[in-house]
């Protein structure tokens, strides 16, 4: 039973590369070191929801066709389209993404990736303000203050804390596992005391056993040595339960809270008692912790990019961290979702100059989010054909955008029959990147990692890279025939 070590997991932006797989009869049978989502992927990818043969919609129904027919149909659609969009890219390899750029340039289309519904606003912010950041190892070694704002790593990046932040050992900072266990014990102890009081068993509780609802000073955990964890969110998430300090902000009001912090870290006084429901004393504690730390890191997620203000929320978050560098060392990092959305941004940028929303329709790359972003193109009904790869906009885009996506010819390349594939006109099954085909992916901190091929793909199923190359070749053939005959 061969065991494959150092496998890179192709799920989220953590890109954990210490996964150990046991492979038997061309199937993954055991996963070691992975989180629940990782296991689900490696053990569950061979589900019945997988397409085996290319499909073309004929008379309203998807029917199986030979590969050549599907390639030709797809190439025809793209070569004849006036303003096609090529979208997705975040769950495939850099090798495939490169072909994507070439194909989009060849047909004069718009190239966009899932950043548009994820950290696109963060990119726009970075382009305006810059970003003080680092690789994840710097945090592991040095960070003694870790803040997650508007994101829930426990649910979306489950091993983030144990691999890179609070629960990991660094050269200069120790893991906070012990602190966490003590907290859990104390919480369990508190519950027992509360229940005992309710039942009337304990008559005279001593002062320290009961914590008042409103805190008069910082929680004792904020004054401790070692790593501190602060969570800021609109609701108490699973991550918030393990934090040393949890700040609850009102939805759509993060901007004001951040600006308040910016003032506080510059030793300015605030005239109000509360900022959007958060007492100023709480904010003063956070500001204090930020300024006093040796190395702080602020991770942020879609709680900031998707709520009111969008990129302005990120502007102010980055500005806050940048200002903190006047007083101590601080960094900020977006929690990228898909395992290779960073790769898509990186590849698009080096080849075209722009990270997403790249419009090639004039023969050279143009970039104007709001105009050239696929979301807006769909909402304004401007595109006349689409190729969707390694993503599922039908499951992730607002209804109105999906309507137009479905109304125009839709080509889908994906291993699964996902929601978009169910409504496609030409569907190509492809191999799972990171399981059935290797390649390169970029972690959320821009570190490139190799993905492994651990099993063979089912017979007849090609890789994204191969499918795209064939479509590109066929597009060139069709176009040269057109110029010959004209």
């Amino acid at each position, binding site marked *: 039973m061969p065991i494959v070590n150092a496998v890179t997991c192709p799920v989220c932006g953590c890109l954990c590369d210490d996964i150990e797989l046991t492979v038997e009869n061309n199937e993954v049978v055991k996963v070691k070191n992975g989180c629940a*989502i990782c296991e689900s992927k490696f053990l*569950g990818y061979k589900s019945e929801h997988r397409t085996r043969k290319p499909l073309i919609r004929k008379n309203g129904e998807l029917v199986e066709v030979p590969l050549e027919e599907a390639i030709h149909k797809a190439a025809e659609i793209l070569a004849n389209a006036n303003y096609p969009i090529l979208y997705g890219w975040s769950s495939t390899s850099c090798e495939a993404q490169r072909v994507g750029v070439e194909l989009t340039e060849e047909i004069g289309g718009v190239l966009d990736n899932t950043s548009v519904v994820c950290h696109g606003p963060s990119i726009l912010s970075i382009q305006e303000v810059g970003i003080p950041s680092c690789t994840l190892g710097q945090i592991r070694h040095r960070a003694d203050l870790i803040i997650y704002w508007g994101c829930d790593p426990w649910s979306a990046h489950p091993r983030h804390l144990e691999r890179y932040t609070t629960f990991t050992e660094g050269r200069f900072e120790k893991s906070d596992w012990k602190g966490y266990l003590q907290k859990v014990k104390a919480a369990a102890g508190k519950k027992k005391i509360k229940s005992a009081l309710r039942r009337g068993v304990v008559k005279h509780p001593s002062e320290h056993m009961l914590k008042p609802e409103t805190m008069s000073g910082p929680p004792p955990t904020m004054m401790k040595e070692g790593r501190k964890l602060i969570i800021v969110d609109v609701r108490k998430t699973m991550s918030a339960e393990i934090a040393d300090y949890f700040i609850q902000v009102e939805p759509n009001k993060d901007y004001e809270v951040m600006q308040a912090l910016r003032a506080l870290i510059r030793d300015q006084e605030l005239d109000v008692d509360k900022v959007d429901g958060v007492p100023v004393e709480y904010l003063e504690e956070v500001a204090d912790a930020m300024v006093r730390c040796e190395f702080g890191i602020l991770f942020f997620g879609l709680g900031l990019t998707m709520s009111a203000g969008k990129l302005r929320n990120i502007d102010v978050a980055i500005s806050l961290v940048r200002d903190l560098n006047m007083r101590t060392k601080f960094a900020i990092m977006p929690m990228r979702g898909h395992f290779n959305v960073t790769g898509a941004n990186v590849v698009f940028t080096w080849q075209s100059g722009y990270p997403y929303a790249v419009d090639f329709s004039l023969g050279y790359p143009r970039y104007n989010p709001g105009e050239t972003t*696929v979301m*807006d193109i769909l909402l304004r009904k401007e595109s006349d054909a689409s190729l969707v790869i390694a993503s599922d906009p039908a499951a992730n885009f607002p*209804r109105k955008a999906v309507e137009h996506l479905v109304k125009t010819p839709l080509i889908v390349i994906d291993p699964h029959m996902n*929601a978009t594939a169910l409504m496609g006109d030409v569907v190509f099954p492809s191999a799972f990147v990171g399981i059935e085909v290797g390649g390169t992916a970029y972690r959320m901190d821009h570190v490139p990692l190799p993905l492994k091929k651990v099993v063979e793909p089912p017979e007849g199923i090609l890789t994204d890279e191969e499918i795209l190359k064939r479509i590109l070749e066929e597009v060139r053939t069709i176009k040269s025939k057109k110029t010959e005959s004209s």
Partner: protein
Amino acid sequence: MVEEKLRVTLLTGRTIEQGVGKERGKGSKEYFEAVSMCYMDAGDMKKLGIKNNTNILVSTENGSVVVKAVKYPRAATPGIIYIPYGPWANVICSNKTSSIGMPSFKGTPAEVEPARDKPLLTMKELLKSEFGR
């Protein structure tokens, strides 16, 4: 006193079950159960007389959809409901992109009412009814 409708703020986002489900396949039972539901505050559910694991109708200016109401297991979140990413959330989430391509997936004003008799559609049925395919 049981109210008829409640004004809330709609958030959409990830959950670990949605993550596990999507890797199993968008057609899988795990995915369906993970994304056709809605976390609600226990107090709010009581106000509307909604029992745990029954259907509700959530409406925004963009449309309405039937999802299953589930009590939020952690601290109280009055006035906030949370539907995981997926086709159900997308029927009603905002498409206003603020000219930068990003719809307001979080923080949309919504209305909730009980809908015990309304059926919960499968993904295929939902796509068919929304997009005709």
